[in-house]
């Protein structure tokens, strides 16, 4: 059996008495596009935070390409190939757009420690940063500060940062939330163009994005994974419809 790209085994995370994630097991094979759906408070973002290492789980294990990374620090997991975006846009507000991407590029290299040479010295990084901005459609705003970007442009930058760190597993927390239909389409196109070497796990409420991208869907509800299946199976499930309509 091939190893999974990312795997959570019996993962739990409790905040005091609240079990945000309660014994979730999820295994995503390499190259798969996996959607995580579920109502607010289902534990989707908490699960993400445990996978990336920004939170440590109360119980359970996390595997990355077959290696147990449960106690590995967040920045080391990034070096091992995890990349993420944040639900609430988390970019470098007072820096320029291109500086944001440059930070993402040098994050996984030793270059971030270089202190005796100017940034200008590393031409190849500037070119790569330009290419990353081109991909998300922000090339024209490279030298503007993030503060002057629109909300949609910041979401695009959010995605550019995650992509620039060349992840093998990409975790996207509601990449299309709050965007206009046009911007949504643009994000969906960028994601659809990503090579299959990248495994994608994404949280999304917009069913058109989920159906367009996902190979498989996991439904979380009250901290538990209650269903796993193809997008069509999940869509057809009465139980899922009831959860979303609040009849449970």
């Amino acid at each position, binding site marked *: 059996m091939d190893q999974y790209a990312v795997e959570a085994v019996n993962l739990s995370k409790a905040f005091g008495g609240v079990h945000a994630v309660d014994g979730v097991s999820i295994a995503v094979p390499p190259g798969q596009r996996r959607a995580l759906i579920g109502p607010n408070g289902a534990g989707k973002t908490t699960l993400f935070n445990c996978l990336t290492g920004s939170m440590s789980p109360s119980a359970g294990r996390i595997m990355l390409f077959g290696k147990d990374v449960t106690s590995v620090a967040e920045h080391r997991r990034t070096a091992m190939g995890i990349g993420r975006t944040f639900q609430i846009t988390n970019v470098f507000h007072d820096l320029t757009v291109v500086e944001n991407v440059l930070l993402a590029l*040098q994050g996984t290299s030793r270059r971030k420690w270089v202190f005796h040479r100017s940034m200008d010295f590393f031409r190849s990084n500037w070119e790569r940063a330009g290419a990353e901005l081109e991909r998300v459609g922000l090339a024209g705003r490279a030298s503007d500060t993030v503060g002057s970007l629109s909300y949609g442009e910041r979401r695009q930058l959010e995605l550019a940062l995650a992509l620039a760190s060349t992840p093998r597993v990409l975790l996207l927390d509601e990449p299309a939330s709050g965007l206009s239909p046009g911007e949504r389409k643009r994000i969906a196109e960028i994601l659809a163009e990503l090579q299959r070497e990248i495994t994608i796990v994404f949280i999304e409420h917009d069913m058109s994005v989920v159906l367009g991208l996902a190979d498989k869907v996991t439904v979380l509800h009250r901290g538990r994974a209650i269903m796993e299946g193809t997008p069509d199976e999940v869509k057809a499930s009465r139980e899922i419809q009831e959860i979303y309509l609040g009849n449970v």
Partner: protein
Amino acid sequence: MGVAAKVGIGCAGVLALVLPQFLNTFWISLLIQILVFGLLALSADLLIGHTGLFPLGHAALLAVAAYTTAILEVRHAIPTLLAAPAGVAVAVFFSLIFGVAVRTSGVYFILVTLAFGHIVWGVLLRWSSFTGGDNGVGNVPAPTFGPISFPTLSSYYYLALAVVVVCTAAYRVLVRSPFGLTLRGIRESESRMRALGYNVVAHKYAAFVVSGLFAGIAGVLYIYWNRFVSPATTTLVISAEATLMAIIGGTGTIFGPFIGSAIILVIRNYVSGFLVQWMTVMGLVFIATVLWAPDGLLGLARRYRARRARDATSPDMASLPKR
């Protein structure tokens, strides 16, 4: 850098070289002090303006360097060439210890650095057999490198100026490097930096130690200027002033800390000579900074320039056709 900035720096450079020929010792002494504390403020600003940490114990780092050099020179007759680097090394050693403060952030970082500063102050005051207690260490000889000595204030001014210029140039390279950009990323969002693969604590620790290096150099410059050091140098007031100098001049800039240093020290040393209420003047400057120039004087200049540029590019409202 704009033409105006280049001309300004050029003029400042010429003035810095020529001015001491026309000034009396009071003003030369003040100029040296501005350089020394400007360098201390610059070192603190690596943490304030770039990393987003507010240290309140940097006077302690300056003081341990000053004490080390003073004790070596006075009691053991160690030559400057060894005593000066030893002072810097001890400051770096202390910042390696104090650096654990970076595991905290926000107000806790301020309090931990404040506590470290007070510990140093307390030890310097109480361990009088070694530190001289309240009397401090005095009679430090002029810095001497073999046959070359700097016995007069004006000759020492040029030595201090050279050291500060070299330090500032090195600092400028540092903040424009990938490491410098990393620090500004940490200032903006630590959680994003971790997600991008940065060991945030390690970078903050490194920044603290580098900051300690510059503070140590300021401490050595201080002792050869003042020829005397006492626990008074270690007080919270000095640490707070270093922070305020950076803020008044403009955090995250190269020249801001020196401008802030000049403003505060001129008020304290010159205005105090004819105005008993000089402390009030200082207070008004602080309040004015907070109200109208929270980015400091250089930040104010930058904002003014940005507005002028915007006005120049936007269409002239008066020339638009009336409705």
